[in-house]
């Protein structure tokens, strides 16, 4: 049998070989993602036998409810902020001449690959009571008392927007780059003003990037842990922190698992809903 034999037997063998090649990676993911998550799911309905008690608790007790609403509120604010800040940056990167586009993109990509811990530290330096921002505002005479910019929800949001902005800019940029310039010129030649062409031609064509960016940022914020833990001042308890506290402080595996499962269901539901519009691998390929 030669390499280009088109017979069915050859194809079957080829497929078997491909599965074999993928199997080591698949086993790692099975062992370290699928099995642990599956185990959490069973824990969430188990307490000396099947029970929905853990779920009943998280849907009835105030602390859980407050944490979920806080997390969704922060995710919404962060998503809107990244869109407002990110859209113009992506637009600029897609329209300026070399080397300016490279410069803009490197400003976006460099923080992307910087440790989240490093950035949390930097924001502590910038935002604390005697930090750079407060000193500058006081120096300019704009405030007389230092503002509480960190160890609260505001600090968490400022740092989270910073961390997730690249996840908005990169999908936007890759979509905008593919929009043919001629379309805008055609719009202009037909008498449309710049704003008109933008709203009627460019904006609609950039929507797939907007949807991808919104989804990524929203979903990633839902799972944020380190930033609220370090910048939230112990009062901004997001869902991930509830999961970790239940395990670390109270050894409450049932509750931790149930909260984790609810979080996971939210994340997967959002990805699946959006996946009907944009293929998931397109969305994740932006990294």
């Amino acid at each position, binding site marked *: 049998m030669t390499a280009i034999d088109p017979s069915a037997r050859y194809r079957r063998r080829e*497929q078997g070989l491909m599965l074999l090649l993928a199997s080591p990676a698949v086993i790692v*993911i099975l062992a370290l993602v699928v099995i642990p998550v599956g185990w959490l799911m069973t824990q969430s309905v188990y307490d000396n036998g099947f029970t929905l008690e853990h779920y009943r608790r998280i849907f009835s007790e105030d602390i859980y409810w407050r944490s979920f609403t806080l997390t969704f509120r922060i995710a919404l604010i962060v998503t809107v902020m990244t869109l407002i800040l990110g859209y113009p940056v992506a637009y600029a990167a897609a329209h300026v001449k070399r080397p300016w586009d490279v410069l*803009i993109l490197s400003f976006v*990509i460099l923080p992307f690959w910087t440790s989240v811990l*490093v950035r949390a530290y930097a924001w502590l330096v910038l935002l604390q009571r005697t930090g750079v921002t407060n000193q500058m505002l006081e120096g300019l005479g704009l405030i007389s008392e230092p503002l509480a910019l960190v160890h609260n929800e505001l600090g968490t949001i400022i740092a989270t927007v910073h961390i997730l902005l690249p996840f908005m800019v990169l999908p936007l940029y890759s979509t905008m780059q593919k929009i043919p310039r001629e379309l805008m010129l055609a719009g202009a030649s037909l008498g449309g003003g710049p704003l008109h062409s933008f709203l009627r031609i460019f904006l609609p064509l950039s929507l797939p990037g907007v949807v991808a960016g919104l989804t990524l940022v929203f979903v990633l914020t839902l799972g944020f842990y380190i930033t609220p833990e370090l910048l939230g001042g112990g009062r901004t308890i997001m869902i991930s922190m509830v999961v970790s506290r239940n395990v670390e402080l109270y050894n409450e595996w049932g509750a931790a698992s149930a909260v984790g499962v609810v979080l996971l269901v939210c994340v997967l539901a959002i990805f699946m809903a959006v996946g009907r519009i944009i293929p*998931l691998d397109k969305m994740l390929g932006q990294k």
Partner: protein
Amino acid sequence: MRQPLLPRLVFGAFVGLVLLYLILPLLIIVPMSFSATRFLTFPPPAFSLRWYAEYFGNPAWMQATRMSLLIGVLTVIVATPLGTAAAYAISHSQTKLMRSLHMMLMLPLIVPIIIIAIGIFFIYARIGLIQTLTGLVLANVMLGLPYVITSVVAGLQSFDKTQEMVARSLGMNRFRAFLTVTLPQIKASVFAGGIFAFISAIDETIIALFVSGGQHQTLTKRMFTALRDEIDPTIASISTLLTAASFILVLLATSSQKRAAG
């Protein structure tokens, strides 16, 4: 299609401010790391190498750094071949099963890490992998695989697969054909994927918080604890070094990807 000057200026200023917001936190840590005082005042009243001396002179920080580097290197050694093999399979097979497996391999990017972390914590506790090098490397291989796979799949997309076919029809076996014909042409994507897996392993914090410790404590776990309890300015010097290192690595990875594309 030139727009009037004023809106362009306002737009440019806005973009400039956002870029400043992006880059400022990375820039601020450099002068902080050379500060002579314990306090987070900016600009520092005097400069010194005190916090670098503190970092390099502290055996606990050094031990954690060595551990993180070791984990990073071992992760790359395991994740790169595994991810490359999977990427080869993904780009050579269009079956439904392979598409689902591809999705599954991307799960570490989708599932919130905290959920994976506590699941792994529990499983490791049962099989005795808590606070072990093996456990930490395995977890980081899992997190690094999506980066290697994404990078290599992209590399294989622009590679003309008939070349490997030609080599095989001339009598080379498949593995040799891959090594001598395909791999040299996609090596830049493989290299970039490996670097991203390395950076991801060095930066990984959440799983390490649960499963690292004792002698096998990672740099990020120590940093996290130092930041949560009381801000130790040594963090500034470590942060500066880490940022410089990831800057160089990202530069290497992206220039390698560019060469692959060009």
